[in-house]
């Protein structure tokens, strides 16, 4: 191998190593890119969107209600199995956590292609019931992209919003996330979803 070819091979190897390092750094930084700081504010209604088998956000929602952060709690989910909406079960669980039945309700979302469609649906729902402010409890992995969409569509509807998540959910999600199937899957899926949303006008 002559000197010129050796130099060229070395240059390619350096570029490849830099690419691998960049990819690893980007992957490690995903949680910090995806998770926004949580914020709470007293609101007319609390929309509970973090209903998930890996989450204990029901406890957090009950805590927010007891602190007087919202007068009403609406549990929101789409169908996950035949005629099964986790929102219905979250309502029952929240009743056992001392939230009165009259302050609780479930909202069934239709199947949609992206979060922006869900957010528009929710903004219309709150507006149609005369809500002026809403506190949304979301999954931490989708909080940054979610907040952008929530502020956009709720803002258009004239509704003041705050977006938060359970601190324990965040702590649990970030613990060894790259070594746990569901955590890595959630982070990567959230990153893919946020990136793809930018390509479709109805999802931005």
């Amino acid at each position: 191998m002559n000197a010129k070819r050796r130099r060229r091979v070395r240059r390619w190897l350096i570029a490849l190593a830099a690419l691998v390092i960049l990819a690893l750094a980007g992957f490690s930084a995903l949680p910090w890119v995806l998770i926004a700081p949580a914020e709470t504010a007293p609101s007319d209604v609390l929309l509970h969107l973090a209903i998930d088998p890996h989450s204990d956000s029901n406890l957090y929602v009950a805590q927010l209600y007891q602190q007087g952060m919202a007068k009403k709690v609406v549990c929101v989910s789409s169908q996950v199995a035949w005629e099964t909406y986790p929102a219905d079960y979250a309502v029952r669980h929240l009743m056992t956590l001392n939230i009165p039945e009259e302050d609780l309700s479930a909202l069934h979302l239709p199947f949609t292609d992206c979060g922006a469609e869900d957010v528009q649906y929710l903004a219309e729902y709150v507006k149609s019931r005369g809500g002026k402010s809403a506190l949304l409890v979301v999954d931490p992995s989708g909080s940054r992209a979610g907040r952008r969409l929530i502020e956009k569509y709720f803002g258009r509807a004239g509704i003041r919003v705050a977006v938060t998540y359970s601190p324990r959910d965040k702590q649990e999600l970030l613990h060894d996330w790259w070594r746990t199937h569901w955590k890595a899957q959630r982070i990567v899926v959230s990153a893919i979803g946020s990136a793809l949303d930018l390509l479709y006008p109805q999802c931005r």
Partner: protein
Amino acid sequence: MAVGEQSSQTKLKRPFSPFYIGWGKRLFLGISGLVVLYFLAPPALTAGARWLIREDGLAPADVVMPLGGDARSLRVRKAATLYQQGLAKKIAVSGVPYTWGFHSRDAAKRYLIVLGVPEADILELNDSWHTRGEALNLAEVMRQHGFKSAIIVTSPYHSRRALYTFRRTAAGFTFYSAPVPAESPEWRPERWWSRRGDMEHTVREVISWGNTLVGGLQ
């Protein structure tokens, strides 16, 4: 002209090379490449998405299993149809528990009963959080019942990887793939990039293939 100047001009002249391409040719080749890409990329991408689908000819098996993660219940419905066609004697269902009172496996079981499948022919598997877990749990049940073969029902984009995972995880059994149809509202391979939902399924599946092939997180 001095002798020195003449020799330096001679040095600057490019030596003949059959691989040398001038700027005009480069521009022409670049534009031609883009035109070819414009016409060839759509069929190539559609063909790539079609490759994700694995559909075997229908053959009788001991058990049929609709995989979990079936929000629209299409897999369960297809499994019930195969059972009613006499292609399997039992249906195995799996799912995950939600902490406050329901299990997605129970919902699948309820739907099968509504569709006319006798409760005695429904086998309930242990909790499965991913395809490999479902393969391990099914293999355990197949061993207990002395079953040799199973039909795997899943979404079309997941079918090839699911079958690959089942065969690799539970060697010694025969598995067939019978996915739900590749059509709306689930997923269509034709021009999948033009629809947000189909795009996400396709991209996620390609990434998951990478994880499966390198034996990554299970």
